[in-house]
């Protein structure tokens, strides 16, 4: 069972539509009381960092998801800006992130010659697996859709599950324990995305 955290940013219906077709039970939650106990969580996101954090805080979902992850080891998948807010903060905004993963989010140009980089990073790109993890099973060199100008810079190198090259390699899938983040959009990545979401749906609480 999957609960998609609906804080008004990101493609909730694309996720629910996809899980419906896969026969995986799923529901959307706009407030903490709607989160189905024991379900895996998805934190979708399209948008700016501060807007995402403000809406997460205001809806009470920020506290609820932190509690679920830290107290019961509930698996959570952050997508795009939903991944970025898992970190401690971002150069895109001023709000503090959820802090579930140590590190920050920085501009794509920061670590590779930014001047010549066409941004945002927009389009289909491949992932290279850097750490074995159930969520990327069967997905080495798979293509995913990306749309972003900021990237994660995890404090711990072994939180990188997969990397993607654009100008230079950046972490495209990160995670530790039950916390997983993907910079790409699995809900919009045809069968590689479906596979990743199926992999995530199969994970269970620690």
């Amino acid at each position, binding site marked *: 069972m999957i609960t998609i955290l609906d804080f008004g940013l990101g493609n909730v219906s694309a996720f629910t539509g996809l899980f419906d077709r896969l026969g995986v039970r799923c529901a959307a939650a706009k407030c903490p009381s709607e989160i189905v106990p024991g379900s895996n969580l998805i934190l979708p996101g*399209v948008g*700016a960092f501060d807007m995402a954090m403000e809406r997460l805080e205001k809806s009470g979902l920020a506290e609820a998801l932190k509690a679920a992850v830290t107290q019961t080891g509930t698996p959570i998948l952050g997508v795009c800006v939903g991944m970025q807010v898992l970190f401690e903060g971002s150069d895109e905004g001023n709000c503090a992130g959820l802090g579930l993963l140590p590190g920050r989010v920085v501009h794509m140009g920061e670590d590779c010659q930014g001047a010549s980089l066409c941004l945002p990073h927009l389009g289909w790109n491949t992932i290279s697996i850097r750490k074995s993890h159930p969520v990327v099973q069967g997905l080495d060199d798979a293509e995913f859709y990306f749309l972003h100008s900021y990237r994660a810079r995890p404090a711990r190198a072994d939180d990188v599950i997969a990397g993607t090259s*654009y100008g230079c390699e950046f972490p495209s899938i990160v995670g530790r324990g039950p916390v997983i983040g993907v910079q790409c959009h699995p809900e919009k990545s045809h069968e590689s995305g479906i596979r990743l979401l199926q992999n995530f749906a199969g994970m269970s609480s620690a």
Partner: protein
Amino acid sequence: MSLRPRLIPCLLVHNGGLVKTTRFADPKYVGDPLNAVRIFNEKRADELMVLDIDATSQGREPNYSLIATLARECRMPLCYGGGVTTPDQVDRIVSLGVEKVAIATAALADLTLVESSASRVGSQSVAVVLETRRDARGQLVSVHSRRGTQRIDGSAHSLAQQAEKAGAGELVINSIDRDGTMSGYDEPLIAELRACVNLPITVVGGASSVNEMLKITSRHQGVAAAAGSLFVFKGKYRAVLIQYPTPSERSTQPRG
């Protein structure tokens, strides 16, 4: 930086159905929008662009229920344009599950709309559309809005730079005089605009073949190729047939 070339079907919505125009006129009915999205899902299109060509001219709001239906069905990224005039609308469309909102008329009239929209949904989700037309001698390029009916002051070059500065995440160049003609993209204009902005660019209008689309994307960094007629008509009699190149057709096309 070897991103896969983006080949994008561009679908026009008119009176609730899908149409294909020629030089922004003579809409020809080509089918049902939801059905087309399903076919492009099966064909694994890179991305879809859906433009409601009635909304601005009728002075009405975007059709949110249609957008929600298409966004839910779409298993590839979706760009929506048509009738968007406020940051609230941009926000609402993104919340329906659309990755990118394209704004032409309203953005060119007031670039603060781009700025305020980008600050809410992020630059990556705001695309600015320039509808371009060359003069009778094929020389000067003018920029238009309201589906080509209104001339905008300023060159394509300066408007593109202004859009980038205001926080647009993508530039869409829509050639009015090549629309539906399948006579080839306006490549000199693509090259000129590529040189003056860093944004990803999507070009639409004139695509003659998949091969031409691949050539455009390989010659110009960060340029995606969109097409209408090429993906909805087949043969010289322009029979309606939704089509999209398979991965092997894409990789075996001659390039250069």
